[in-house]
């Protein structure tokens, strides 16, 4: 286990009491348990409050564009086998702007973990409805109530047979850390949707609201049972299950890569003899 101090301490730009702070704590804890030194960790993020996370942790960091945490994460994971890859971003970034990448990543199944800080609101841009905001919930930009039905990423991920699907709660730091550890160890794409209170803009899904509702999945839940998983994935109301919802066993993308590809790509140089031979083929 790597001492947690190795991941550093940083001043954050988050509001006091923000759920992101606990998630950051849990992630460090998980990395320590995973025995990953900072330079073996690579985190890609998008843009938003959550997306600032990798700046508050010693690691390799690619803080890219809004909605685009997944494409660089997959690109990096495919190119570089020396690092363990995470993508981390907010619900708006991940399921709004980045929805198409989410769909494709679930199908592609590159080994990496996707940590979504789901505060059910656009935090950084001051409180607009996000894809996970409850229908009818009013915001400054949706004064007549959010018109769309909320997105349930966990249910869609189970439908799409994502090999590791979990729902977690920011305030349950140890529980969350454990889920992240499991996610990182599971081959293939792992989704961890993390319920995260936003104390500044989300006055509905508060700590109290979550506390009343979240309960940990116990031994009786069998994540390898798709039906059970689907049932738990859809439970989001008076009661919200947290824990590993689903575990499948799809073949990860890496196992389908052409065998001649020498990864990490950084050390692969072009075989000029082979190329000369290829050129001959054009004669």
């Amino acid at each position: 286990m790597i001492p947690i101090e190795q991941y550093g301490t940083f001043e954050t730009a988050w509001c006091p009491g923000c759920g992101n702070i606990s998630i950051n704590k849990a992630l460090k804890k998980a990395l320590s348990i995973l025995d990953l030194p900072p330079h073996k960790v690579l985190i890609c993020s998008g843009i938003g409050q959550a997306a600032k996370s990798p700046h508050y942790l010693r690691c390799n960091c690619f803080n890219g564009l809004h909605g685009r945490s997944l494409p660089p994460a997959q690109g990096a994971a495919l190119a570089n086998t020396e690092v363990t890859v995470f993508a981390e971003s907010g619900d708006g970034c991940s399921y709004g702007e980045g929805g198409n990448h989410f769909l494709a990543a679930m199908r592609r199944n590159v080994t990496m973990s996707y940590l979504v800080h789901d505060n059910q609101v656009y935090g950084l841009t001051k409180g607009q409805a996000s894809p996970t905001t409850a229908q009818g919930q009013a915001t400054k930009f949706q004064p007549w109530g959010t018109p769309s039905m909320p997105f349930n990423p966990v249910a869609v991920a189970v439908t799409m047979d994502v090999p590791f699907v979990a729902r977690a709660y920011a305030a349950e730091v140890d529980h969350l850390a454990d889920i992240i550890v499991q996610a990182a160890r599971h081959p293939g794409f792992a989704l961890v949707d993390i319920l995260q209170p936003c104390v500044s803009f989300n006055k509905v899904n508060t700590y109290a609201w979550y506390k009343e509702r979240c309960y940990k999945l116990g031994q009786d839940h069998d994540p390898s049972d798709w039906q059970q998983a689907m049932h738990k994935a859809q439970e989001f109301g008076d009661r919200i299950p947290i824990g590993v919802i689903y575990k499948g066993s799809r073949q990860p993308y890496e196992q389908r890569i052409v065998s001649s590809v020498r990864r990490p790509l950084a050390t692969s140089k072009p075989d000029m003899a082979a190329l000369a031979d290829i050129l001959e083929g054009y004669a």
Partner: protein
Amino acid sequence: MPDTCVNIVIGGEAGQGLVTVGDFLAKALVRAGYEIVVTQDYLSRIRGGHNTYAIRVSHEQVHGPRESIDLLVALDAQTVLMHRSDLTGRAMVLADESIDRLGHPGLSIPFKALCPKPMFENIAALGVLARMLCLDRKWFEDLIAETFHKKGDEIVSANLKVFAEALAWAETQQAGFSCMPAPERTEKRLFLHGNDAIALGALAAGANFCSYYPMTPSSSVASTLIEHAQRMGMLVEQAEDEIAAINMALGASYAGARVVVPTSGGGFALMVEGISLAGMTETPVVVVLAQRPGPATGLPTRTEQGDLNLVLYAGHGDFPRAVFAPGTPEQCFEMTYRAMDQAEKWQSPVFVLTDQYLADSYRAVTPFDLSALPPVSAPDLTTDKPAGYERYAVTESGVSPRLVPGFGEHLVVLDSDEHTPDGHITEDLDVRVRMVDKRMRKGLGLKEDVLPPIFTGDDAPDLLLACWGSTFGPALETAQVLRQQGKKTAVLHFGQVYPLNPDQFLPLLASAGRTVMVEGNYSCQLAALIRQETGYVFGATVSRYDGLPVTARHILRQLEKAN
């Protein structure tokens, strides 16, 4: 040139196999030592319609396509109708006996009689063509053997038989077509189109990651890469969309891969934010943009040079870049190779602009001397001082040490926000200024490295034709024609269109009596850029935007109009 070259056009519906005939014939011609320029004109559909495959061939250098037709292979009646007005005096029409040649000289081929099955008709057509062009049958026989090798000996000999019978039939026919002068060269040449050459240039430079989303006319860059991926160890991934393609490539590049991203204008339009990210994070990426006519979906399978402005200004905010615009398959290879190097050296997005005409245009290409290629810049894997490593250390050149994550204790931190030298997000406005200055300084380096435009032709010419990208050949041919008419003419070809170094070309422009910019777009975008950067105004411009490649005839007519 007019007399010694032959323009062969094969016309028919999509799906009739005219590309098979064309490729076969063109390759045989190259093996026989001829020079060719292939022009493929096709519709945005899979079956039906009317497509053509044109091969302009000569024992001497040929530069571009030509409208007039010497040999028309009509796979359907429509072809005769549509192209009869382009037939030259000596033209012959080759068609199935069921097709009315409308009185044009030629051959009515009894395909049914010559072929046991319709699928052999292409080979039969080649037999007739071999005869018409007085080509040694061995070029075809070799190609038949190589092509059908995998399908077994039986198929090979069946095809050889059809070929031989068609050839024999043709020999019995009167309609002789005067033989072309035989080429003198005997060295091997490669049969490549622009997109093949781009893919091979990228591979030679070490490209080992390609993410793309299919789009005509760029897709064959990806397919050529895929064809060789196994042997070259390249990872090619079809992304869910162009945004993913560019961002995936940037992630891979950051993580140590050498990346290339092929696309076309509409797809590139979606990458604009990603280009800005490459600029901000200083992540090397080579984007190949194969142009087609816009706006929007435009004419998906035709050619244009309308996206120069788009690549020049893609991305919000100011940051440096380089834009190459090869004019021939050779240049496609060399410039893509160089683009890979420049992208890494200056840690910037670099563009290779091609277009449908060049992308699909096969030529006889002198084999590349792989051993003579200059070394390509590469990122460092690790450092002695991991603790102090700063991805964006402020340097005089603007280039900071680029390390690969995971190979040592250093941390590589990239940020799309403005950042401190160690890569972390900042709102310190003094740092902001230092970082902008640092990034923009790389533009000076890119400018120092810029490839000079190629000047060819008469010194102090009466007329200088400037051009870029695929318009090179047609401009060269125009100059040849004008020189034959006694006009001192030169061509100035910009193979790199950005940055511009005025010292490299202003004196040449000044030395000319009259200067004309030739571009395959409506607004003459390079002329505008040159005026913006240097104040220089061309005497006239020639533009084309009907979806067809610029030709010498087009230029000559426009020059007359402008006079």
